[in-house]
């Protein structure tokens, strides 16, 4: 342990209390990874503050001593965003789980960052409301983590992401200042810092309170299952639905390999020999849902769906979703190990990109199962490998990287919802120019001049990724501005 950290520990105990600071290696071990389980790093120390004041005091201490910190919510992140720093403080919000207020007249809720996503919906549902962003991890993942990742879910196609629904934040800056941005009113004055902080992956400070908007439960919801004989046909149906004028709340798709995996695992009536299944959910005013359903069924049939099945009661709908929701786990049972990829392509490019992924899989002999948020072009190829084979991971990584390149080639993104974190920091140059990255870096430094907030995440650094030409170093813009005239 570094000397700076050793001297910090008694002061951290003063701030968070003896039970709010974990120093034993055994205790710290439980925090050495997040949802990206193959990346591990033992945190220098773990703190579990219970109040904003404690968070602020911890960050002031870090900033005063130059010790890095990493925020952590529930640790379900899939990009290693909460991967600890071995000589830093891991600050978890696990003990900040108070629901401050559910305010129905203002259609919002105010919560501490450690509150699990689903708790908000559970509290709002008796009033006819829910919290729209619904990552599949919603029973465990924290609202603070959702804010940091700008998480979406199956229904973000229609309802948007965390950024669409958050109205206000309390942020403790890396220098330990407490700032309230936004509130119950949807807009503030000045730059929209609320939405600039959303998706910043813990690099701009620690979010200590969140005000989220609640959404009225729709009058009607129906779920449609359609089976296709080829992935191509399924992809073409998705493109047709998206461009038809219907806006479903969700359009999900699975390929043959995922169907096979799922059928061995849960009871869902997906046709065993289908090459693709499509799940389309529609919600809204009853008459609109009915009319749209007719249209979607027609489009599926026109694109060769050999079976469609519609469910409108909750149990039956849940059965359709059960297969989709179990997909990652099911593939996990099929293969000793796998990489979950998270690229995005324009929806019109889906059929073509899926063909090219199939070709990549064939050439390399690496199996790839496709489970994805088809409606917004967000692919989750599961790249399978045998981790007992010394070369297995590397070969899978190669295919996974090639899929990302495909996404960028088609004008898409290297991450649709899992974030950049530690996992993709070195992939950012695939998507952004050195100038774009330099702009991001300047923005980051505006919040974190000394570079202690979740370092080595989100942006590539020479230490992690090797030198890149054209990257700005040298005089910092803040220093530069110090020399310019101030007002």
């Amino acid at each position: 342990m570094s000397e700076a950290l050793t001297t910090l520990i008694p002061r951290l105990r003063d701030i968070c209390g003896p039970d709010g600071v974990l120093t034993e290696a055994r205790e710290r071990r439980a925090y050495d990874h997040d949802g990206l389980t193959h990346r591990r790093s033992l945190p220098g120390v773990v703190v579990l503050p219970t109040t904003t004041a404690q968070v602020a005091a911890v960050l002031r201490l870090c900033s005063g001593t130059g010790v890095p910190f990493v925020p952590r919510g529930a640790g379900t992140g899939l990009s290693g965003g909460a991967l600890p720093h071995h000589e830093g403080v891991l600050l978890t919000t696990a003990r900040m789980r108070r629901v401050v207020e559910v305010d129905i007249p203002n259609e919002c809720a105010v919560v501490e960052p450690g509150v699990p996503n689903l708790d908000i919906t559970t509290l709002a549902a008796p009033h006819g409301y829910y919290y729209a962003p619904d990552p599949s991890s919603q029973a465990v993942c924290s609202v603070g983590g959702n804010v940091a990742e700008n998480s979406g879910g199956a229904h973000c196609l229609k309802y948007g992401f965390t950024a669409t629904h958050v109205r206000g934040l309390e942020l403790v800056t890396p220098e330990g200042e407490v700032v309230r941005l936004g509130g119950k009113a949807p807009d503030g004055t000045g730059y929209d810092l609320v939405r600039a902080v959303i998706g910043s992956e813990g690099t701009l400070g620690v979010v200590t309170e969140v005000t989220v908007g609640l959404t009225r439960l729709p009058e009607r919801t129906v779920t449609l299952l359609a089976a296709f004989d080829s992935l191509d046909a399924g992809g073409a149906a998705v493109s047709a639905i998206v461009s038809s004028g219907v806006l479903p709340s969700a359009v999900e798709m699975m390929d043959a390999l995922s169907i096979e995996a799922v059928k061995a695992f849960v009871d869902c009536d997906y046709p065993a020999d289908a090459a693709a299944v499509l799940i389309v959910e529609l919600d809204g005013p009853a008459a609109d849902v009915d009319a749209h359903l007719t249209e979607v069924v027609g489009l599926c049939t026109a694109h060769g769906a050999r079976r469609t099945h519609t469910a409108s009661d909750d149990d039956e709908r849940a059965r359709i979703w059960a297969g989709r929701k179990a997909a990652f786990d099911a593939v996990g049972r099929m293969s000793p190990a796998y990489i979950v990829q998270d690229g995005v392509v324009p929806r019109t490019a889906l059929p073509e990109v899926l063909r090219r992924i199939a070709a990549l899989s064939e050439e390399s002999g690496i199996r790839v199962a496709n489970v994805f948020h088809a409606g917004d072009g967000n692919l989750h190829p599961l790249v399978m490998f045998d981790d007992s084979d010394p070369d297995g991971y590397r070969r899978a990584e190669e295919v996974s990287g090639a899929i990302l390149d495909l996404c960028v080639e088609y004008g898409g993104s290297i991450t649709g919802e899992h974030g950049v974190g530690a996992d993709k920091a070195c992939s950012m140059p695939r998507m952004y120019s050195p100038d774009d990255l330099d702009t991001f870096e300047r923005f980051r430094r505006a919040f974190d001049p000394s570079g202690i907030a979740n370092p080595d995440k989100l942006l590539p650094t020479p230490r992690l990724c090797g030198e890149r030409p054209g990257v700005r170093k040298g005089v910092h813009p803040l220093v530069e501005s110090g020399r310019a005239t101030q007002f």
Partner: protein
Amino acid sequence: MRPVRSTTGPVDPSVLDDLAGSGPRPGTPGDVVGGVVPTVVARPRGEADAARVMAAAARHGLSVVSRGGGTALDWGAPPRSVDLLVETAALTGIEHTADDLVVTVGAGTPVAELTDVLGAAGQRLSADPVRVGGTVGGMVATGVCGPRRLLFGALRDLVIGMTVVRADGVLTRTGGRVVKNVAGYDLAKLHTGGQGTLGMITSVTFRLHPTPPALRVVTAAVSSRAHGERMAAALRARAVAPSAVALDWPSEGGAHLHVVLEGMAEGMTARVDGVRAALGGDTVVSERLPEGWGLVPARGTLGFVACPPAESLAAAERIGELVRAADADVLVRGSVPSGALHAVFPPGTGADVIATAAEGVRSRPGWSLTLMRAEQHVHEAGVDLWGEVPGLPLMRSVKDALDPRHRLAPGRFVGGI
């Protein structure tokens, strides 16, 4: 007429040389920005040209303001200086990938042109413009939109990517062209509503919506704040999914609530009935948006009020009371369930009246009032345009990071940024 001032001396010939190719010319009183006549005006022919112009401005240390349609040049505080006015008119081009419901459009493109192109394909950008004659860049830089934000999101929620020329002339991109993307910081959110103080927007990518086949507007008179609140609460309690619930509350002639429904024609009867039941009393149903939907008048001082949504009617009432107590008029209009209202003061309304209304609103917890556009006598009287701005020190840091020498629209934004 505003007295016109110029902040700099004669044009340095080497500046004109550096801008050659972008049609540089001396500024005239017709180019005035917030009372300031620019020294030089340039019109870059494209994105790369815009970057060259901005780089030249950086070399010469010039202050820069961009002009789109010129409909909001008097928004914000008057800039401290305008050495160079950059016209975006030639930054045009509409790249509409209709099947993806996405469009990338040059900042200088008139909003009306974009609307026509999208409309022809049965699609739309679901943000109601508040001004006529604006460009896409101007709309995004001012960041305001009308009442349909309720269902489709505010303008910022519809922006998925941007290209921006930085203060130092470097062309950068943020976001992308796909509807789902969390790679990197979402800097487009800062430029949206940033009034050009962090960079010059050259193109914007939006997510689009299909134009719904049917539209109905149910209008009811609102007799009092309490009456309006009852209607808003009753609407909330029903799953009628309105696109907008818009209040119009002038000083004279009584207040109205317009509930906009969009969707399939088949469903309209039932939804209209639901809305009428919620509103109670007499209602008028129309198949067209009211005249001037979402627009704010082009003249006079304009305030933007944000408050917790359940307090929208209380905020509208309070402004009305404060203004009427001074024997003046105000029109309050906006989205009730969003807590986002515009307060429109007729031209000539006294600075003291506006200051009183602004302070009266700002004194309530959770309410804010920003004077988006103020008449010159209001500026001269030193009326505070923004009130207290939470997070201002962070905003200054962001400005320092992206425009270290404070050359972009200096002084126009909150706290003199």
